[in-house]
């Protein structure tokens, strides 16, 4: 039956996604320095967009559905952006060099008694 065959759109989407995944896999072994991360993230973003359009057909979804998808991303941006205002201007977290401050308590899963520590 001809009507059962997958639409060309899905086949192309699948092929492009697999190719991009393979590309990202290969590129990760090459030394670009800091650009490695950037390249991999860009490829991931492209893949996400291709999935959203090719598989999910976001451009044909209800307008409100698209708004909701964007709202989630926008609020993520708020979370990252305003947190960055803090971390951009102060020392990043580091491993504390004064272990004497630390009170060592045996972890929960090691405690003998049934109650929580």
């Amino acid at each position, binding site marked *: 039956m001809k009507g059962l065959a997958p639409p060309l759109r899905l086949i192309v989407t699948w092929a492009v996604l697999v190719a991009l995944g393979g590309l990202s*896999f290969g590129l990760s072994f090459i030394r670009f320095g800091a650009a490695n991360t950037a390249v991999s993230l860009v490829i991931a973003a492209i893949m996400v967009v291709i999935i959203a359009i090719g598989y999910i057909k976001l451009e044909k979804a209800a307008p409100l559905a698209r708004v909701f998808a964007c709202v989630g991303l926008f609020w993520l941006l708020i979370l990252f952006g305003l947190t960055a205002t803090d971390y951009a201007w102060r020392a990043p977290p580091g491993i504390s060099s004064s272990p004497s401050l630390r009170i060592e308590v045996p972890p929960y899963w090691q405690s003998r008694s049934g109650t929580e520590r």
Partner: protein
Amino acid sequence: MAETSSAPEPEIQYASLAHQGETAEIGIWAFLSTEILFFGGMFLVYALYRQAFPIGFAEGSKDTKFIIGTVNLFILLTSSFTMAWAVELAGTEARRALTVLLLVTAALGLIFIGLKGFEYYEDVWIDHDFPGIIFPMSKPDARANELFWLLYWMLTGLHAVHLSIGVGLVLTFAHRAWRGAYIRYGKPIEILGYYWTFVDLMWVVLWTLIYLPGRNI
């Protein structure tokens, strides 16, 4: 089977079945936006600590099972393909093909979980990469390394939970599809497809964050 192959009645609060379907579509998207922020909170932690401890994170990532992770990526991309194909067939007479496609999707999901389980087995019993319980402190930049592995377990673990729920749903829907529930009304399959593909999409991001850094050291 005759009675289930007719279009179902809409629930009392809806004017029509189409009304109900579009409402469900909006509902799933609102749900997926919460999922973005759920994973997003952990992505923020990941981003900050990776910025703070680039070496520890690269060293940690180097020890992840790259081949399994990548094979799993391709498996999920394929499962989304079969899922999207199933969505095309929902609402048509192709009951048998729809059921088969859903079963293939679920099977791919199960293969993913199986491979993931094997990966977890290697992580714990062979490489001892489980933070807090068994973790080799001899590793370079061990504390940061441990943080990476903690995020690895949390992110992939939550993803696996989502995928397991997805497999359960797909199998349920396959059962209903076999009984002809989606011949007249295919919207539920579409809703299921959004969820499934979203879980796949999340794996693309996780794979990039978890497996790729530190490969070229």
